[in-house]
């Protein structure tokens, strides 16, 4: 029994040695092959996710800016009933929300006015008691809130759109990347009462076109009541282009 076990063990060891030698030989062969016959390096590139994408369509040519000489007396054209084809747009109707917001702001402002009146009355009462001197008077401040802020933003947006519509430069001038800062003062109806430069570009043609843009933009959108003094006295500063 013991003799048989020894033979098996010897047999196992022999096979193990043969197996190890065989594996070593394979490793040696491949090592020598790699050293003598080097293969090309395998390049690994980062994976790119490729969606099925079409090339873009050509943009439609922008309509040319009408030449000054082409300005003629406009004859009312007959109404064209043909519907204008436009891609369907999903519009969010926020007019109701806006109306609600304005109503709420008006209510809030009414409350504020009541509060101010009350405070004014109480101040009047205490005026005699507390002497006013420099340092103890609270300034009303200049920050706009509520409805005033809304009107302010609306007016800025309207003026921007109105001026930009008339802001045209020839390409050769636009490529020079010039900048100018102008100002304009308008009356309560939006008509220009004064215009000029805070900082001209230095290029005569560019500056001429800035002034021409302001002139063509007159009348400006009429300023809200509370802003009439601001735009009439301090004026509006216009950055061409920024």
């Amino acid at each position, binding site marked *: 029994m013991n003799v048989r076990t020894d033979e098996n063990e010897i047999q196992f060891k022999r096979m193990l040695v043969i197996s190890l030698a065989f594996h070593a030989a394979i490793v040696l062969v491949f090592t020598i092959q790699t050293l003598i016959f080097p293969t*090309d*390096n*395998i*390049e690994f*590139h980062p994976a*790119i996710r*490729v*969606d099925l*994408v*079409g*090339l*873009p*369509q*050509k*943009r439609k*040519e*922008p309509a*040319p*800016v009408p*030449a*000054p*000489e082409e300005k003629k007396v406009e004859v009312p054209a007959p109404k064209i009933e043909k519907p204008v084809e436009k891609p369907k747009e999903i519009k969010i109707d926020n007019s109701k929300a806006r109306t609600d917001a304005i109503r709420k702001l008006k209510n809030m402002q009414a409350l504020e006015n009541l509060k101010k009146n009350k405070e004014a009355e109480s101040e009047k009462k205490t005026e005699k008691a507390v002497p006013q001197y420099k340092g103890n008077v609270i300034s009303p401040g*200049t920050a706009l809130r509520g409805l005033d802020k809304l009107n302010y933003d609306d007016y*800025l947006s309207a*003026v*921007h759109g109105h*001026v*930009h519509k008339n*802001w*045209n*430069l*020839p*390409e*050769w001038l*636009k*490529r*020079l990347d010039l900048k100018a800062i102008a100002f304009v003062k308008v009356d309560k109806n939006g008509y220009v009462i004064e215009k000029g430069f*805070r900082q001209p570009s230095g290029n*005569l*043609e560019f500056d*001429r076109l800035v002034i021409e*843009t302001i002139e063509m933009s007159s009348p400006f959108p009429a300023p809200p009541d509370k*802003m009439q003094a*601001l*735009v009439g006295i*301090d*004026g*509006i*500063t*216009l*950055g*061409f*282009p*920024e």
Partner: protein
Amino acid sequence: MKKFLLVFCLLLIWQQAYSQGQLYIKVGEANVKKSLLAVPPFVFVGSPALVKNYKQVGQDLYNVFYNDLDVSSYFQFINQAAYLEDVASVGLRPKPGEPGGFDFANWSKIGAEFLVRTGFKVDGGDIVVDAYVYHVPQAKAILTKSYRGKLNEVRYVAHTYADDFIKALTGQKGWFRSKIAFISDKDGNRWKEVYVSDWDTFGVKKITNHRSITVSPAWSPDGKTVLYTAMSYHKQAKTNNHDLYSYEIYTGKRFLISWYKGINTGASFDPSGKFIYLTISQDGSPDLYRMTPDGKERTRLTNGPLNALNVEPAVSPDGKQIAFSSNRSGQPMIYIMNTDGTNVRRLTIAGKYNATPTWSPDGKRIAFSGWDSSHFDIFTMNPDGTRMERLTDAPKKNGKPSNNESPSFSPDGRQLLFISDRTGSKQIFMVNADGTRERRVTFDNYNYNSPRWLWKIPD
């Protein structure tokens, strides 16, 4: 520290002055308009009895000048019927400086922003041109110059005049005296040879006579050499091979640069002119190499992967990057890498076949021809692959899409030449870099290929 605080306080005060209590509106980028230009007929100021063909000379001069300004896309021309002055009966300069001169008011009334007044005469076989360009709103001359040239150089004189006008307007050189190289079968046989000409394909000169197929012309940055590939017969191997040649424009000398087995093609110079980049397929797969212009030293830049094609290298104007096309991802697409072959990035994923990349002179755009469903069109994109735009889409006469290929930017980057088969044969066309005004440049029935614009402009 005190100085710093002082400057800071001053800046703060200045900023406050502008921001407090004032409405500040940034108007934004201007809309682009064309300047209204009046170009009355050129006035002959010599003696008609002495020069028989003065009308033809004047007409040629006018037509070339007018076409150059039209191509520039800066102007909208005022119809001559709208002129308030009889230009033939008033002087070339304004009154009251010149008695009998023209009146600025007559040009201002019709909205002219620029007025060109030109007189010419023929003097002993030379044409002499007195040129004036006025800015009407400011009532001042922006160009006053006299030109003289041989009668057979009328076109060159007109191009020079147009170049000077553009420089007076923009401060940058015009490109109307620039040259182009292209491949054509203009000889009327089946061979395709290399030609050079003015930008408008006048003054054509054939520079090869291989009686073979030539492809891929490329200018050296100094405009003295043109590289091209021609199919040549190798006697020893008894095979046809695509070999790279260089041709010296001013000496007429020709050199064989690269003749490795397979293709040696798509060569382009780097901006310094010290290296050329090309595709060589000696080792089986077409790969990109950098080579000295004499062909003696070369460095391999790409190596597959997996036998992929790497072709059409285009070196960026700063000499740091190469755009090229490769099918390593399956379909031919545009890739970019450093000029030492590192940092390879794929730029296009859209379309099915994108090829022939070329850089704009400022290095901000790459143009290429792309195939999406049925035909090639010209596209441009940023060097990172963003903001891709299609520039061409004109169909053939039968309404089917045309193929538009092989773009090349003008020296100022505002226009591109390309090849289109919209008229039947492959003709040279031009389009503005924003995709407007596709217009035909060649008007015959021959076939053209690979127009390449030389960016160097004569002084």
